[in-house]
């Protein structure tokens, strides 16, 4: 066992993690980033269409309009103090990203080019769509991630790549670091830190068809849950309306932002029946349910569970300059040139609105409400500030990672000077090592892949876009069966170096725990709001459910709690588009 000591440890090397690392390292701190993969492989790389900031480069825009859209997009479940701050800071953050080197696409006069995205409108939702998504062709995630990674190298951030963090090290006095398994070397490392940031991303791999990378298994949230800390609003899982059928790979909302149509088997632009004013640019939850309804009504293309995304009317130049990656993917995977034929698309699991409850300085809340857990921070998709409430707007996630990653980095830099290293919890470390050893020494009596596939298939069927009581209860029973099966996995005889099976076993444990948190939250919430759609309770119920879910796990028992939504400016209203 090898022990490392750093002022600040950041788990995860996506946009949030690297933005934090950059700020803390620039302030002169000894920063280490621990990542399951080489940093540029992180899932942020997959973001395509753009990142949100009301720069007004194309037409007038204001952060207040962005604020209203984010509130309404969240179906009024977001916390408005955080949402207002986010929309204001997004503007400076976009310029910051430009200054450190992000190669944004440009307007004729040399400013950042912006395009339309679903849910972003002018004049407090009353005006036409506004171009607010700052773009770099259709590779915003790649350019943000690569730029931040380069700058982290410049400021000598320490990278521990291909290390999977297995446990948080937590005292009553606070968090003092993490335990991790080095994939290549095949051994346990202890990371001792003054402050620890989780930037571990989301959990959309819990579902069978997903835009997410193989690594998006919610590890950070899983560790927080196991440490007895709460998770917030876990039942809100975003399904992206347009995944490339049948793979589920992301086809950016930017395609509709550039003017793409959604078409059913009858050749009809069906969004006119669901969102007559905003059509294809309605928020994702609305478009997603519309597609699902079309498929259910038998209007899927050639009887298959998909519809068409049509950009054949766009010019070759627009497609090649603004959507080159989409074009490449459609050609490489589906054999379809989108200039000539429409792209088959269907909803696909995409994003975790919920996560680790934090305040606006990214401090983890031990009770989910006010009490700060010393030494532990979270930012990005794994955190719940809550900007996105019940439904996230496109382009708000990469910007959330940048805004709150930076906030976390700056805040940690400030605190690190006056925070000491807590002693390492020897008993916890010993128990952690025993757990890994047991996995490695048990003979295999069931397969990790089989349990994972059953989990993904059942979560999609029973806790997907449309939910109801009976199916959610069934899923809860089934999760118990899967958890029992997990006790029988074993990895005896596998090589110690690059043991993917061990990584997947650790991930699966988190996935099973998170699955139960999602289902319990969904079962309790007897209303439909944003991405959470209960067919047995189709209306939003502000009287009883205008509140955040908190879920705790102790000795495998789950407990639900709730906290009010912070409303500062916009009172809940009916959501029409």
């Amino acid at each position, binding site marked *: 066992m090898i022990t490392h000591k750093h002022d600040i440890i950041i788990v995860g090397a996506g946009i949030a993690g690297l933005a934090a690392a950059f700020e803390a390292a620039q302030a002169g701190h000894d920063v280490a980033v621990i990542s399951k*993969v*080489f940093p*540029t*492989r*992180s*899932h942020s*790389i*997959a973001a395509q269409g753009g990142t949100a900031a009301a720069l007004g480069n194309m037409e007038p825009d204001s952060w207040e309009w962005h604020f209203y859209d984010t509130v309404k997009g969240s179906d009024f479940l977001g916390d408005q103090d955080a949402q207002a701050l986010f929309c204001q800071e997004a503007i400076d953050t*976009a*310029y910051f990203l*430009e*200054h*450190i*080197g992000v*190669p*944004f*696409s*440009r*307007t*004729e*006069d*040399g*400013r*950042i080019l912006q395009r339309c995205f679903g849910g972003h409108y002018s004049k407090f939702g009353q005006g036409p769509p506004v171009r607010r998504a700052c773009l*770099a062709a259709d*590779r915003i995630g*790649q*350019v943000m991630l*690569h*730029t931040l990674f*380069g*700058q982290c*190298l*410049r400021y000598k951030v320490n990278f521990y790549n291909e290390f999977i963090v297995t446990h948080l090290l937590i005292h009553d006095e606070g968090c003092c670091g993490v335990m991790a398994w080095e994939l*290549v070397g095949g051994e346990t490392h202890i990371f001792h830190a003054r402050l620890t940031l989780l930037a571990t991303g989301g959990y959309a791999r819990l579902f069978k068809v997903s835009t997410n*990378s*193989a690594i998006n298994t919610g590890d950070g949230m899983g560790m927080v849950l196991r440490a007895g800390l709460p998770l917030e609003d876990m039942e809100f899982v975003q399904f992206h309306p347009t995944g490339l059928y*049948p*793979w589920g*790979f*992301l086809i950016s909302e930017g395609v509709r932002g550039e003017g793409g149509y959604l078409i059913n088997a009858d050749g009809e632009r069906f969004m006119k029946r669901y969102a007559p004013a905003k059509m294809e640019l309605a928020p994702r939850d609305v478009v997603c349910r519309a597609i699902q309804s079309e498929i259910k009504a038998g209007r899927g293309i050639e009887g298959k569970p998909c519809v068409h995304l049509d950009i054949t009317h766009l010019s070759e130049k627009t497609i090649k300059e603004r959507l080159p*990656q989409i074009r*490449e*993917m459609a050609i*490489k*995977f589906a054999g379809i040139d989108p200039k000539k034929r429409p792209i088959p698309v269907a909803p696909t699991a995409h994003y975790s609105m919920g996560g680790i409850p934090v305040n606006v300085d990214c401090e983890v809340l031990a009770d989910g409400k006010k009490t700060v857990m010393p030494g532990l921070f979270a930012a990005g998709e794994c955190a719940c500030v809550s900007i996105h409430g019940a439904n996230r707007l496109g382009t708000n996630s990469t910007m959330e990672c940048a805004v709150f990653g930076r906030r976390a980095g700056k805040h940690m830099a400030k605190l690190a000077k006056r925070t000491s290293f807590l002693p390492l919890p020897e008993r916890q470390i010993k128990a952690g090592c025993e757990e890994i050893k047991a996995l490695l020494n048990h003979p295999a009596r069931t*397969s*990790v*892949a*089989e349990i994972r*596939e059953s989990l993904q298939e059942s979560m999609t069927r029973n806790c997907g876009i449309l939910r109801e009581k009976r199916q959610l209860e069934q899923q809860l029973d089934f999760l118990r069966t899967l958890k029992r099966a997990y006790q029988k996995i074993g*990895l005896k*005889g*596998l*090589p110690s*170096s*690059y*043991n*993917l*099976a061990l990584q997947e076993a650790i991930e699966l444990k988190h996935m099973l725990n998170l699955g139960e948190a999602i289902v319990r939250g969904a079962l309790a919430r007897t209303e439909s709001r944003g991405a959470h759609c209960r067919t047995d309770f189709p209306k939003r119920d502000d009287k009883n459910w205008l509140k955040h879910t908190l879920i705790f796990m102790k000795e495998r028992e789950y407990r639900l709690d709730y906290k009010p939504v912070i409303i500062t400016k916009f009172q809940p209203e009916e959501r029409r588009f």
Partner: protein
Amino acid sequence: MEKRFFIQRFFPGKDKRPYWQEYVLHCDSTWVVLDALEAIRSKQDPSLAYRRVCRHGICGSCAMNINGLNRLACETRLADLPSKIRIKPLPGFPVIRDLVVDLTQVYQNIEAIKPYLITKTPPPAKERLQSPLERKKLDGLYECIFCGACTSACPTFWASKHFLGPTALLQACRFVMDSRDEAKQERKKFLKQHPSLWQCHAILNCVEACPKGLNPFEAIVLLRKSLLKP
């Protein structure tokens, strides 16, 4: 359809030498090579090692040598391959295990060219202006995903450990070409002192290998031209 996979296995320190292992698999017509590897690992052999993350050609994790060509496993359709498929790790790098190679050399070379924008003047309140024409100069350069396929295919890289390789040189070009960068002289000085730029023999394997259709050789020529300009 049934496919026969011959996969090179090797665990340095345990195995004396690399060996081929055969797997026979029923594959769906929509599958790519990565789907087959995942199926082999979950159904037949959990000990098989390879890298994979995004599954759709953007993260650059799964570059490997498939029937003699360096490609991304996630983008290579089985329907386009013959019934016998031979898979090796990327050539030219130390093997960690099976299809997982040590890319440290590539990463160090990227770091050596300073892969970040350097500015000296204080930033304006808003963005630094860059015309669409200036921005266009970054096309074909900024899209690199660091998969290592080009450097792995480069005989000059195999022969000389001082050669930075096409991946790093393409990155060097990306920053020299950026109208906003204010360290161009230092960058050029580094490239002038470093033997790399003149070591490339225009074998062009890098161009053939790049899964993103980029042209590292053209970048090397651009850099050479920029050094020759006063």
